[in-house]
C-alpha cells in the first residue's frame, strides 16, 4: 500500500475554487498532482451521476469546490450542491464506498492557500483509505 497514489477527480466552480486554484499557481504554492480538474460554471452543474460514474471508472476520490454560502455567482447553486453531496454521501456509504471519498469544500477565488491545503489533506486521506473498493464503507454514516 505504501506506493499507492490515488486518482482524484476535482470538479471546480469557475468563479471561485477554479480561480483559487489558479492563484496557487501564481503564488507557486505546491500540492500533490493526483487530482485533475474539470471546470464547471457552477458546482450545481455536477450531476450526482457524474460522481457515481467517476467511482465506477475507478476514481479513489472526488473533490468538489464551490463558492462560500451566500456567495454563489448564480445565487443558490452551492446550496443545491450541498444538498446533493450530503445525500450522495449517504448513498455511497450504502453502496459500500466510504463517504469521505467525496468531499465538498467552499473555497473562494482569494483562498488559494485553502485550496492547496484542502487538496493536500484530501490526498493524504485518500492515501490512507487506500484504493477504492466497494467494501471500505463504514457501517453507518452517522
Amino acid at each position, binding site marked *: 500500500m505504501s506506493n499507492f497514489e490515488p486518482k482524484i477527480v476535482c470538479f471546480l466552480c469557475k468563479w471561485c475554487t477554479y480561480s483559487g486554484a489558479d492563484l496557487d*499557481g501564481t503564488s507557486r504554492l*505546491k500540492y500533490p*498532482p493526483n487530482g485533475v480538474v474539470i471546470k464547471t*460554471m457552477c458546482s450545481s*452543474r455536477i450531476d450526482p451521476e457524474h460522481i457515481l460514474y467517476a467511482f465506477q471508472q475507478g476514481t479513489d476520490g472526488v473533490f468538489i469546490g464551490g463558492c462560500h454560502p451566500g456567495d454563489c455567482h448564480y445565487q443558490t447553486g452551492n446550496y443545491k450542491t450541498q444538498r*446533493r453531496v450530503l445525500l450522495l454521501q449517504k448513498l455511497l456509504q450504502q453502496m459500500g464506498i466510504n463517504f469521505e471519498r467525496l468531499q465538498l469544500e467552499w473555497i473562494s477565488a482569494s483562498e488559494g492557500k485553502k485550496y492547496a491545503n484542502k487538496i493536500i489533506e484530501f490526498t493524504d486521506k485518500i492515501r490512507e483509505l487506500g484504493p477504492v473498493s466497494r467494501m471500505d464503507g463504514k457501517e453507518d454514516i452517522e
Partner: protein
Amino acid sequence: MKKIGVFICHCGVNIKDTVDVERLTEELADYPGVVYLENYMFMCSDPGQNLIKKAIAEHKLDGIVVAACSPTLHESTFQNAIEEVDINKYQMEIANIREQCSWVHNVKEDATLKAKLIIKSAIEKLRLNESLIPVSAPLTKRVLIIGGGITGIQAALDIADGGYEVILVEKKPSIGGHMIQLSETFPTLDCSQCILTPKMVQAGKNKNITLYANSEVESIEGFMGNFTAKIIRKPQYVDPDKCTMCDDCTSACPVVVPDEYNEGLSFRKAIYVPFPQAIPSSYTIDMEHCLGFEPIACGECREACEPDAINYDVKTEEISEKIGAVIIATGYDLYPVENMAEYGYGKYPDVLIGLQFERILSATGPTGGVMLRPSDGTVPKNIVFIQCSGSRDPERHLSHCSKICCMYTLKHAKLYKHKVPDGQSYIFYIDIRSGGKRYEEFIQQAVSEEGIIYIRGKVAKVYKEGDKMIVHGMDTLTGKKMEIETDLVVLSQGIVPSEGARQLAKSLKLSTDEAGFLIEAHPKLRPLESLQSGFYLAGAAQGPKDIPDAVAQASGAAAKVLALMANDEISHEPVIAYVDDNKCSGCGICIGICPYGARVLENGIAIVNDVLCEGCGACISACPSGASQQRNLTDDQINNMIKVILG
C-alpha cells in the same frame, strides 16, 4: 471524427521546466482524433498564433486544444486567433497546464503525466463541442454608479459627457465623499474643496445625470446590458425647490447631535445641511435623531419654515431603474479606531484620527482652520503622528498597507508647521512608502526644510499626565525606548472598504478579498472590471487609493462603460442550457430550480429562454430524464473527461 490540433506552450521556461513538452508531443500523437501537434516557446505571441492559424489551414483542423496558461489569461486570445481563419471560437479548448500544473508541482515526471491527462480531457471536451453563435440581446444605454465620492463623480461626468444617461446613487445626503472633508491634498497642497466643489456642481447640474442622494441600491437583477436596479430613496422631508436655505429651521431645532462632517468634533441639529457646499443643496431631517413626527412630537422646524418647504408626510420611495452597466465606487472608511485601545482614542480628547485632524486644518472645520486642540482649545506646541495605526499588523489588525497614510501624515505635519511655525511634529513610522509622482520630493523637502522628525518604530502606549499626552514607543533604528511628551496625538488610521460595501458586494455577488475590497477580473490586465459581466470597479472600493489613482480609475472605468455603450446590442454567452424535446417529460423540476426564471413550460416541454439563461447548469443536474443539457458541457462530455482522467 473531428480533426484536432494540439498546441503545447513552453511559456518560456514556466511550463517547459516542469513539464516535458517534447514527450507530450510524442505521446499524444496517436491519441484518437489528434492529427497535428506542435510545441512552441510562446503560443500567445504573434508567431505562436500564426503557427496555429497555419496548421489549421494546412491540416484542415476542425478544432484545437491549446495547452498553456489559465483560460482567464488567453482564452479570448486564441478564440480570436481561430476566428480569423473561420473556425468557430467554441472549437478551442485551453488545457491549463501552467497555473494548475507546472507552477504547483515540482517533480517533472508527475507534472508531465498530469499535464497529459489535462490535455486529454480538453481533447475529449473539444471532440463534442458545437459551434455556437453568441446570443444577442438588447442594450440599455444607461449606467448606474454607486457612490458619489470623487470616483463616482468623475465616472459620472465622463459618461455623461459621452452622451449617456447616468444614475448616481449616494448613501449620504450629499455627494462629495471623503474628499470634501479634506483640507488640502498631497503633494501639491491644493485646497481639496476648491478642486472638488466645481465637479460636484457639474454633477448636480448635468442633464445626463440623475442624482439620488440619501439613497441606497437594494438589488440589481438581470444581466449585462439589461439590469434592473432597485433603489431605496430615503425622504429628506425638505423640498429643495421651495427651500431658500435661510437656516431658520436649524435655529428652531432643539436636537443637538455630533456632526459627521466634522468627524464628531462639532455639533449639528437634527435638521441640517451636511456642509455648506452640499449637492443637492438642501436640508435633510435626520430621522434617527429627530424627536419624531408620527405623531408630531416637536414640529418646531416646520413652524419656523416660512416658505413651507418642510413636509413630514414624504415616505421612503422605491425606485426601479433600467440600466446596462454598473460602476461600483463605494469608497472607504477608516479602520474602526475602537480596536486600538492602546492609543487611548475615545478616552482622551487629544487623541485624534487623521480625518478629524483634517477637519481641524480645514477652513470650514470646527475651529475655522485655527490649530487648536480639542480638550482645552490651546494651540498644540507639538504633535505625535502614529502611522500604520491598524495597518500592516496581520496578527491583530489589517494585514494590508493602506497606501495613503504615509503621504497624508506628512501633509498633516506640514500643514501643522505652516499654522504653528514654532511647533514640532514627530512621526512614528514602519516604512515610508512614497511611490507616487513627486511624492518622494514632498517628503524630502519636509524633512530637510520643515524640521519634521521621523522615528522608525511602533508606539506601545499613549496615556495622559497632567495636560500632556505621553507617547511610549521604541526607536527600532537605535534600539532605544522613547518617551515623548506631547500636546496632541494623531493616528493615521488604516483603510477598510466603506460600511455597507461588503453587504452590497454580497448581494450583487461580487467577489471580495479578505479585507472586503472588491476583486478585479485580473489584477494587472483587467483591473477595472469585475468578473461579473457588466460590473466595473473604481476607486478605493477596489483597494486603498489616493485621489489621482481613484480619479484615473474612475475615468478608466467610464471609458470601459462608454465602449460598451457604443454597441447597438450586446452578445450573451451561448454556453447555456438547452432541452432535448424527445426526452423532456414536462415534469417542471427545472422551472423551480432556475434562479433566473429562464425556464418555462410550453406545450408540455420545458424550454429555455436563451437571453435569460446564465448557464449555471443547475437545471441540468436536476433533470431526471437527462433532457436538459448544457451547450459544450453536456453529460457525455463530462463523462468522457472523467473517463480519460481516470484512464
